[in-house]
């Protein structure tokens, strides 16, 4: 997924297909509206958000203790616990476990962490077949694309796109793109995979320190069916997935699905506290840069994220540029603040892929200050010298002018006198990006300051 192209270029490409962009925007806006309906149906909504914020804040302040408590309780339940500093170690742990059981095929449910670690290509390289079982994930896997959304992985695709993909890989009828038909075809296809898998992998929505168990939420039942057939279940979690108490789940479960898809709860909320009969359950706790984020006062709150995707759905930029324009595993506002923690240079355009409208901060169920983080990230980009030199020069010059009001007034006066005399071809030349598709305002004869002076003088 590495690329050197910035967000704006990829966004422009996406936006050039106006019909498709508008369709994408509407599809996600619809999800946002469903979320609003749920939020507005609960008088206690804002209190749930602030309580979730408080629980997460407290947990991050005591994270090491809660991780140790979780580990102790999980071990006492017969769950094997592993720790991985980074993606490489995570992938190696997974491979070693799978090899120790001679696993040839693993069914995997949605896990942004394994996407982050690029686990699939790694396992495939080592001869293990990985089948993503979430329908949207399976669709993008067959198409060899990354997911474009953290909850709705195939939201960028039309049903006809899915139809062609299934025609090729699942032998569905040519030209049949009926969603029910395609879903049934995937059900049959994946049932075989579920029954044939030697192991399962899942992500983790919440890990409960108090009980040593984990919770996974799905609508399709894929994580659930996948993990209950084979004897081996590996669950991967970032260190930030911990919550202290079982009853804290009442807050997060009430918020998660309502924020994500506008449902009151997901179809399945499975609480795993041990393996299946004669089976093994492994939990891999992964850092991969998270403790670094914890060390930054400005950005540590991003670790509160519960991956509901609400900030993507509400983001006017995401809705019109698509998930792939971000070039990072997690797109949208939350991805734009997480990615620069990983590689500021590579992802230097993401904090600017934002009009600072602040809608993301308002929908976030755990009150992450998303737009404020993106605002501050921009300072990091400039301080590291990654802002384009041309842009920086302009702003530096403007600042100098703005520190010299008399010269600025004179420059303004000149502009107001000269610009109206220039031919359109010069005013609207290539360097005038504003004027590419927008008219400039008509330059007035006098500035406000001149009018004000005249008014005061005449008194």
């Amino acid at each position, binding site marked *: 997924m590495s690329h050197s192209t910035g967000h704006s270029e990829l*966004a422009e490409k996406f936006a050039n297909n106006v019909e498709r962009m508008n369709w994408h925007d509407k599809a996600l806006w619809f999800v946002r509206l469903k979320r609003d309906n749920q939020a507005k149906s609960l008088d206690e909504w804002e209190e749930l958000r602030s309580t979730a914020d408080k629980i997460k804040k407290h947990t991050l302040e005591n994270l090491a203790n809660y991780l140790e408590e979780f580990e102790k309780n999980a071990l006492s339940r017969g769950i094997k616990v592993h720790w991985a500093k980074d993606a490489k170690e995570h992938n190696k742990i997974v491979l070693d476990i799978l090899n120790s059981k001679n696993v040839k095929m693993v069914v995997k449910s949605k896990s942004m962490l394994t996407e982050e670690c690029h686990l699939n290509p790694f396992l495939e390289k080592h001869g293990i077949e990985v089948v993503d079982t979430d329908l949207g994930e399976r669709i993008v896997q067959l198409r060899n694309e990354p997911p474009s959304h953290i909850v709705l992985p195939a939201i960028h695709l039309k049903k006809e796109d899915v139809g062609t993909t299934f025609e090729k890989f699942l032998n569905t009828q040519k030209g049949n793109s009926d969603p029910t038909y395609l879903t049934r075809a995937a059900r049959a296809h994946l049932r075989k995979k579920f029954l044939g898998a030697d192991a399962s992998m899942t992500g983790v929505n919440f890990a409960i320190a108090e009980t040593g168990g984990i919770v996974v939420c799905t609508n399709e039942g894929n994580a659930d069916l996948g993990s209950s057939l084979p004897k081996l279940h590996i669950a991967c979690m970032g260190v930030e997935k911990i919550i202290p108490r079982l009853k804290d789940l009442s807050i997060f479960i009430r918020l998660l699905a309502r924020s994500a898809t506008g449902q009151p709860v997901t179809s399945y909320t499975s609480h795993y506290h041990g393996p299946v009969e004669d089976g093994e359950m492994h939990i891999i706790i992964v850092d991969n840069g998270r403790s670094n984020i914890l060390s930054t006062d400005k950005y540590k709150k991003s670790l509160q994220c519960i991956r509901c995707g609400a900030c993507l759905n509400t983001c006017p930029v995401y809705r019109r540029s698509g998930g792939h324009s971000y070039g990072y595993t997690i797109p949208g506002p939350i991805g734009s603040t997480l990615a620069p923690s990983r590689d500021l240079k590579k992802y230097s355009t993401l904090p600017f892929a934002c009009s*600072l409208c602040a809608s993301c901060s308002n929908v976030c169920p755990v009150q992450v200050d998303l737009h404020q983080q993106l605002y501050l990230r*921009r300072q990091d980009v400039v301080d590291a010298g990654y802002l384009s030199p041309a842009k*920086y020069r302009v702003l*530096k010059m403007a600042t100098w002018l*703005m520190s010299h009001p008399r010269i600025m007034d004179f420059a303004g006066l000149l502009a107001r006198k000269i610009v109206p005399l220039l031919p359109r071809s010069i005013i609207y030349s290539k360097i005038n990006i504003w004027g590419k598709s927008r008219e400039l305002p008509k330059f*007035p004869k006098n500035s406000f300051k001149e009018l004000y*002076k005249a008014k005061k003088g005449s008194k």
Partner: protein
Amino acid sequence: MKIGLFIPCFMNELYPKASMATLKVLENLGIDVEYPMYQTCCGQAQANTGCSNETKVLAERFLKIFKNYDYIVAPSGSCVSMVRHNYAQFLQGRDGFEHMRTHTYELVEFLHDIIKPKSMNATFAHKVGIHNSCHAHRELGMASMSEKNVPEFSKIKNILDKVDGISYSELTRKDECCGFGGTFAITEEALSLAMGRARLQDHLNAGSEYITGVDMSCLMHMQGIIDREKMPLKTIYIAQILAGDTP
């Protein structure tokens, strides 16, 4: 009560009428307003591009010029939000800063919260679409936000209600960003345009004759698209309605 008037840099140069209307609205209400001559810019463009050194220079100028006023009023939600929310990084603890931070108001917000006028002595017999500009809306909290479960209110509407003859259009997305976003309008030009067009289409469908709002910058962006695409729509800065200026 001495009021310092801050006029955003681009409004000073490009929108003298809207700026004069701001002054007129305040003076009509008998408020003692002064415009400090050496003011320039609040530094928002620099700040939103991440240029903190440059922002600091301008924040310090702003403090020096405005700290001794009882209130500072600006015809711009985003400039006020800059002072209220983003200056602390540069000016925290400085003499007069906390007073200035908490006493800088957007024009309509100032009327609504501090002056509380009974009437505006203005008529505007048109169907108006209110543009809830993001910083005024979500950072200053000038109206209930569609994302939140809170009772509905709008300071903008409360003040516009005092204008005779005015009526409103009902938008399907009442507080979506227009895509101006400061330097965003240039950096992400394609999306800025797409967002602007979507807002304008919403207003066209809702039958707005005029789009008004508390941020001239958003209106400038939308008017730029209106003019280029020759849409049957107009923008008008809110102070011009409140001052009774006929368009």
